[in-house]
């Protein structure tokens, strides 16, 4: 590979924030036409490095030198780097839901004729760009009407509209299903064959292993190493070793389940969509949870797992139609979230930033938010008890933060998730429903979260884990339900669970009991 010209060289990049060194002496060499992966745990400095590259942190606010296409670059802002052909696609897509595909592609870059937007040309060019990314849609379709996978493609088409030479993708497949991820990865391979260079940040090591030519690993703001995937024979374990600086013998902590009696049961659960009432999102679903048991819910995108969980959790989703919940042998009716919390249910949502946390809050306030009654007497909050509760969870879960007065918006994804877990552990639940508990969390923190989940089960609580990562479900759960199109299609014991058996039942309506 060394004979291929270097497209980008970042040398001794050091970026300091007051009191914190986010990057120190980081080096990155990207050769023309390769796919270069950047790996590292959350907080390792990946995003900061990309922000330095794309001019979010302008020249002069960091030390070091960026050489791009043979000359030194001093980008003053994002526009400058985009003009040079460097386009960054963020994890949170920057599309406007109420505008069409074509409008989004040319936003800020509209083709004009005599000062007015030339929509004919725009649509024609949009179709051309969409063909290049394999997106078959009418350019007039609104963004909100297409799935996340296609939205991602629109973002890439948008990048092409700017004549991209170096495409930077931050967690491009984090929100995509398997088919869409595969399509995206194929697309990147296609770009490679056409000489477009890509930098990809991802936590999905299997994808990186499959697609990347070079991997640069960052840890604690330093470059650990750069690996050549083919020459060095890199596999996932090798990457993990570089990222965490030690061998992770197992991705899951050892655990011997102590499973007790069935204590929670949902029977014939039917829920309709909140807006389009003819759509049934839960169809006659029934399941049970035993004390000390970790129960998984597997399913494809849109299978209705979150909808099921949230509708059980105090009807916080959809329109309840029929069904019963039995807890400890007694039927309970949960009409509101407050009812659900009072009856010992907890729901950790899949999107902790949008609906799990108030990002204006500090750790302390967040920890007690779901059960203020526990730290108040006659409605008056006790600051000291609040502090002590938050502090004990911070220690127990090993949340990395200087004090519990720290704002949750400043924490990494893994630590934010620990705060959310603390918030729900604080409510003393009997049943915890965890929706995508490790999404966007790095390997080390995942291991810790798994440990917390197992400890909760060992305390005799029931735990439901909804996850899109099958290995996670198989590694963690004692029993797994598969969900397809709003119905439970199977129940698989740990011993029988393989990605293949799960996938089969996640994609078929036929109910097959393997128990």
């Amino acid at each position, binding site marked *: 590979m060394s004979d291929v010209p270097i497209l980008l060289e970042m040398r001794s990049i050091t970026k300091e*924030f007051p009191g914190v060194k986010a990057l120190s002496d980081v080096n990155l060499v990207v050769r023309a036409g390769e796919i270069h992966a950047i790996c590292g745990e959350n907080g390792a400095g990946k995003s900061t490095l990309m922000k330095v590259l794309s001019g979010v942190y302008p020249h002069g606010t960091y030390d070091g030198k960026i050489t791009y296409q043979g000359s030194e670059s001093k980008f003053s802002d994002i526009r400058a780097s985009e003009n040079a052909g460097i386009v960054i696609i963020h994890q949170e897509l920057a599309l406007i839901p109420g505008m069409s595909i074509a409008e989004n592609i040319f936003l800020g870059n509209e083709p004009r004729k005599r000062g007015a937007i030339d929509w004919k040309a725009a649509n024609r060019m949009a179709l051309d760009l969409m063909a290049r990314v394999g997106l078959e849609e009418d350019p007039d379709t609104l963004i909100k009407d297409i799935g996340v996978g296609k939205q991602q493609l629109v973002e890439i088409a948008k990048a092409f509209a700017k004549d991209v030479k170096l495409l930077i993708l931050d967690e491009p497949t984090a929100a995509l299903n398997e088919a869409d991820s595969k399509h995206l990865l194929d697309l990147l391979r296609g770009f490679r064959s056409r000489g477009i260079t890509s930098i990809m940040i991802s936590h999905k090591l299997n994808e990186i292993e499959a697609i990347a030519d070079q991997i640069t690993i960052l840890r604690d703001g330093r470059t650990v190493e750069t690996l050549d995937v083919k020459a060095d024979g890199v596999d996932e374990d090798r990457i993990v070793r570089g990222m965490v600086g030690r061998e992770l013998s197992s991705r899951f902590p050892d655990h011997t389940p102590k499973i007790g009696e069935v204590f929670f049961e949902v029977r014939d659960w039917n829920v309709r969509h909140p807006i389009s009432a003819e759509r049934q999102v839960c169809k006659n679903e029934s399941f049970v949870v035993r004390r000390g048991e970790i129960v998984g819910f597997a399913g494809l995108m849109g299978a209705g797992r979150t909808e099921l969980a949230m509708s059980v*959790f105090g009807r916080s989703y959809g329109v309840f139609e029929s069904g019963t919940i039995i807890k400890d042998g007694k039927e309970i009716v949960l009409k509101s979230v407050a009812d659900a919390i009072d009856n010992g249910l907890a729901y950790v949502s899949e999107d902790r930033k*949008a609906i799990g946390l108030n990002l204006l809050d500090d750790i302390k306030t967040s920890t007690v938010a779901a059960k203020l009654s526990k730290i108040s007497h006659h409605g008056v*909050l006790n*600051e000291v008890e609040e502090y002590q509760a938050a502090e004990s969870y911070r220690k127990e879960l090993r949340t990395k933060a200087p004090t519990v007065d720290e704002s949750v918006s400043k924490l990494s994804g893994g630590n934010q998730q620990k705060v959310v877990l603390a918030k729900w552990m604080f409510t003393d639940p009997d049943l915890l429903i965890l929706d995508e508990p490790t999404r966007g969390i790095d390997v080390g923190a995942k291991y810790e979260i798994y440990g917390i989940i197992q400890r909760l089960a060992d305390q005799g609580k029931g735990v439901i884990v909804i996850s899109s990562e099958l290995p996670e479900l198989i590694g963690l759960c004692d029993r797994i339900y598969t969900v397809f199109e709003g119905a439970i299609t199977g129940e698989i014991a740990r011993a029988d669970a393989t990605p293949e058996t799960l996938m089969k039942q996640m994609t078929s309506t036929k109910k097959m009991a393997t128990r």
Partner: protein
Amino acid sequence: MSRLKDLQKNLFGGTTSNARQFGMIFTLVAIVVLFQILTDGLTLRSDNLIALFQQNSYILILAIGMLMVIVAGHIDLSVGSVAAFAGILVAKSMTEWDLPWPAAIVFGLAIGAVIGAWQGFWVAYIGVPAFIVTLAGMLLFRGGNQFIGNASTVPVPEGFREIGSGFLPEFGPNTGYNNATLLLGLAAALAVVWREIQSRKTRRAMDADPAPMWISILRMAIMVGVIAFAALRFASGRVGTSFPISGIILLVLVIAYSFYTRNTAGGRHIYAVGGNSRAAELSGVKLKRVNFFVMMNMSVLAALAGMIFVARSAASGPQDGNGWELDAIAAVFIGGAAVAGGIGTISGSIVGGLVMAVLNNGLQLMGVGTDRVQIIKGLVLLLAVAIDVYNKSQGRFSIIGSLMRPFRREDSVPPASPPDAERKPAKAAVSG
């Protein structure tokens, strides 16, 4: 140097939200000193201070309610009209229906509650944006005031006027001062000392080092000094004047609502709803109830403010409360509340309101016309919020804040994902 840092960190609590407040207190002191010099000592004279409080107590009362509305993520444009509407009804109830004045006050508060329930219903249960509901209310109740009062003024009886223009009574030995005001000052000073001791206790219980003793003492000394100065000023006005009754009402409300917003579950729910309503809902907060409450509470306070104004001007008129909503909103934003909700304090809003009040008063004392006063007030509002927005975009909370904190990471909060709760991304299996 380390002492200076201690001072910066501890004098006003040292957290970021307090930093903004510290900035505002600093600004308030600077403005007071400036006008004290420019007006040759008129600003801090007893009669001027008393007038300042009487003229602004109703705006500050509105600011209390408005703070809660804004923290919850709403706005209320109708407060001026609601105040006028309640004012005319209360005036009529006393002159035409011969309601005794204490009953009339209760009646006025009830009117506020009914209006608030009406607006809260639309906002919380139907989901009409508060901006629209209260814009409608602004027209509705202004029209209602003029309809009921025939666009004329209605005088109010003597007893009722006390809540707007009354003073603490004279009693006890002749000290040359108003004894009641002195006692009030003494009570306030004791409260400050008691709070400082409590706060040190709390800090210790949280295993955190309380601020160094000398800082606690300095802080108490400054506050007690300010209280003593104010008490002596208020107590030494013209015979028959002292600390105004409307000021007492304001003080009670400030203390009660500060306690409510800071120290109770209900208050915390308001901040939770404003910060992230969906997260609050999924934490068991009853969203509708909170929204209903803040809107209703606002109208009750607006009715109270209206009554105080009517009492002060001895009659209810068709133009009462014109533009009050803007003064109240300005006070809240100058006092550090966030436009998007979730952030703000009662005390900050009061300080913000006082900044505007002192500015207004000082310029008038200097003989500046109302035209130019308005221009200056507009610019001050814009500037105060602009400085804050600019500093936030630079990753700092405020200039003062960055001075006060030893370090702060520049990472800004990442943009929230699209507010599309229906879409559930990433439901796919990714087998490894």
